[in-house]
């Protein structure tokens, strides 16, 4: 495929060519997306180094498994889904965002059935979690750490009082303010999109 023609080829046509071991097609498709993948990763991490690591891993994951692209969605959707999931998995894995696992045997069988999620609901939940983690990550360090300690690591007010060397009521007040700020950001993210909110997060997080 000549360079002139290849630039007008659709992503999906390029994937078909890649499957036939067309290296030029691979280069073209990669070059179309690597910046977007990096920017997407950066919107989650807000750290260039981490975004670089995640972007290169996500790109590798996608391009080394391009044969598994079935064409059920556009290539860009497929690639961004891989990037999304990779970022989410990395955020969950990082110590800052350790999950508290749900207690086993909690709830009746009926309740368990009620909370069994369809794939669509799972994706939606993953999306919400991703927004929340990205926003927490974008908060000023003190607030971010406080929320993590209280809600992700389950620290008591008593422990926080000692750790932060402030009174119990001050801990509660800080938690309240941080929660309110996070709720506002979350609502804005749902309304205007996460990227836009993260771009201007400093305006919202100025104390």
């Amino acid at each position, binding site marked *: 495929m000549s360079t002139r023609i290849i630039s007008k080829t659709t992503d999906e046509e390029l994937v078909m060519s890649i499957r036939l071991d067309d*290296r*030029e097609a*691979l*280069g073209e498709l*990669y*070059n179309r997306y*690597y*910046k977007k*993948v*990096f920017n997407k990763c950066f919107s989650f991490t807000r750290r*260039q*180094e981490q*975004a*670089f690591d995640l*972007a*290169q*891993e996500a*790109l*590798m*994951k996608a*391009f*080394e498994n391009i044969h598994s692209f079935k064409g059920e969605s556009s290539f860009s959707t497929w690639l961004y889904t891989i990037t999304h999931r990779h970022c989410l998995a990395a955020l969950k894995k990082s110590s800052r965002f350790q999950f508290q696992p749900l207690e086993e045997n909690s709830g009746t069988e009926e309740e368990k059935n009620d909370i069994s999620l369809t794939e669509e609901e799972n994706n939606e939940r993953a999306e919400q979690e991703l927004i929340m983690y990205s926003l927490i990550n974008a908060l000023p360090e003190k607030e971010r750490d406080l929320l993590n300690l209280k809600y992700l690591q389950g620290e008591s007010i008593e422990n926080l009082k000692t750790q932060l060397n402030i009174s119990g009521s001050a801990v509660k007040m800080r938690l309240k303010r941080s929660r309110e700020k996070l709720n506002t950001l979350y609502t804005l993210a749902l309304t205007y999109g996460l990227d836009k909110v993260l771009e201007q997060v400093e305006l919202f997080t100025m104390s």
Partner: protein
Amino acid sequence: MNSVKKVLLYPFSIDCPYFEGYAWAMELAFRMRASLQLFTTISAAQNLNGSTDCIYLSLLEAHGYFLQHYQHKGIKSNEVKREACIIQGGELKEELILHLKTNPVDIVIIDFSISTGHTEGVKEIVKESCGVILLSEDQPSGDNKHHPSRADHFYDRLRRADLYKLPENFFDTLGNDLSLFNYLRKFIQRKRS
């Protein structure tokens, strides 16, 4: 070769063409099962202008070049752990020498593009390193017709490179790779004919 993972370092500057050298360093890291540090410098002013972003994007682009021109069957680039090492400071070679003093690595791979006309600089790097491979000038290999195979191209470049203080087991490690045997076989056949 002992079981401790080897560390290779590839210094580069985004102001010089470096994709060919990067691709070769990637392939060497894969063959040695080593990790690869990608070293460069950035001035304080550039850092303020957000040039770090450019470096990361350039590295991602370099990897696209590797995938397009060098990744062949059997090489999984995701098995090579890559780490960008961006130092805020002055000149590349000076910072590299300082870096090597405190962060020793197994092999430094120096590209022709950053070594031209600075023999003294290379000598200093060799002095501070456990091993150095100084790559010679190379033409981009986008057209595979000029190369019998990508693996042969890798060994061709190794043959033309200047090697300094490489560990004794360096070639043993690469010798585990069948493509070396294939390269030597073809090389001997060419000599005979």
